């Protein structure tokens, strides 16, 4: 079941959902509007699909940054987000969608576990200027069924935008 605004608020107060900073004004009837951070990391790959930019995220100027189509950018959520009780789904918001900005590339599912600032994948259909700290998406929280285990991967340790941590392409094969 999806949590309503009042239930989200109640569980934030109880510590069962982390949204930090939390502002009741960002609650929608069954979701919470979150903001992007103020750093961006452009991802690029060579013709063989190997990542070529393992650089540091760059600050986004107050005047924004113009994203170009067919490129992949990483930023992060302004808020620390997570829950050990409810499953988080993270998607874009309507204003972003209507300007053709994809937020998360078919990877909108969070894991039960600790809170952090999530890395967001951005790509756009037409060039679009984005601004640091702008409203970019919505979170929903879902009650799971079954015994709970927590995420043990490495991404929760990162609160700045971070690229693929699986390493070289050879690591992707069946073990």
């Amino acid at each position: 079941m999806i949590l309503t605004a009042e239930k989200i608020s109640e569980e934030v107060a109880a510590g069962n959902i982390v949204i930090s900073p939390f502002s009741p004004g960002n609650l929608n009837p069954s979701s919470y509007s979150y903001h992007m951070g103020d750093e961006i990391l452009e991802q690029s790959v060579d013709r063989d699909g190997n990542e070529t930019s393992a650089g540091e995220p760059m600050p986004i100027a107050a005047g924004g940054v113009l994203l170009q189509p067919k490129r992949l950018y990483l930023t992060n959520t302004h808020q620390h987000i997570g829950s050990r009780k409810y499953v988080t789904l993270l998607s874009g918001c309507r204003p972003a969608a209507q300007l053709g900005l994809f937020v998360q590339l078919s990877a909108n599912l969070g894991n039960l576990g600790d809170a952090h600032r999530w890395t967001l994948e951005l790509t756009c259909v037409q060039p679009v200027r984005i601004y640091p700290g702008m409203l970019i998406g919505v979170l929903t929280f879902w009650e799971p069924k079954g015994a709970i285990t927590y995420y043990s991967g490495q991404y929760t340790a990162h609160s700045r935008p971070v690229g693929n941590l699986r390493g070289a392409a050879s690591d992707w094969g069946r073990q």
Partner: protein
Amino acid sequence: MILTGTEIVEQRRLGRIRIEPFHPEQVSPNSYDFRLGDAVEMYQSEALDFRQENPKVKIPIPDDGLLLKIDKIYLAATEELIGSDHFAAIIHARSSVARLGLFVHVTADLIDIGSYDRWILQLHAVQPVRIFRGMRIGQVTFWSAKGPTSK
């Protein structure tokens, strides 16, 4: 929990889900097929900006369809008004539409509880694809909520 097609029909009968116009043949096992309206909107400028007005132009969909280009974002209302004060709704492309490489939303799939409107689809084609007004373009699912919905 997700509602079955039978339950969507029942909840609509009870007035707890609104879909207008409603056609029983568009009910699927666990969703309802919605249709594309009769026009799309496109932006007049190539580069868009979150802090500026981004003027749009409306383009009626001709009888023989409209060929979508790959490098543009198109906005299009659904034919139906859809919403619920009790259930959250999520929109999806129909699989036959997805197989032609057409996105019907750009990572914004949630119809919040309490919203009742023609949903504005964000159409994006991976390869050029022709769309037709009134086509069954997507599906909407309904999900039960936990917690008060009085807001």
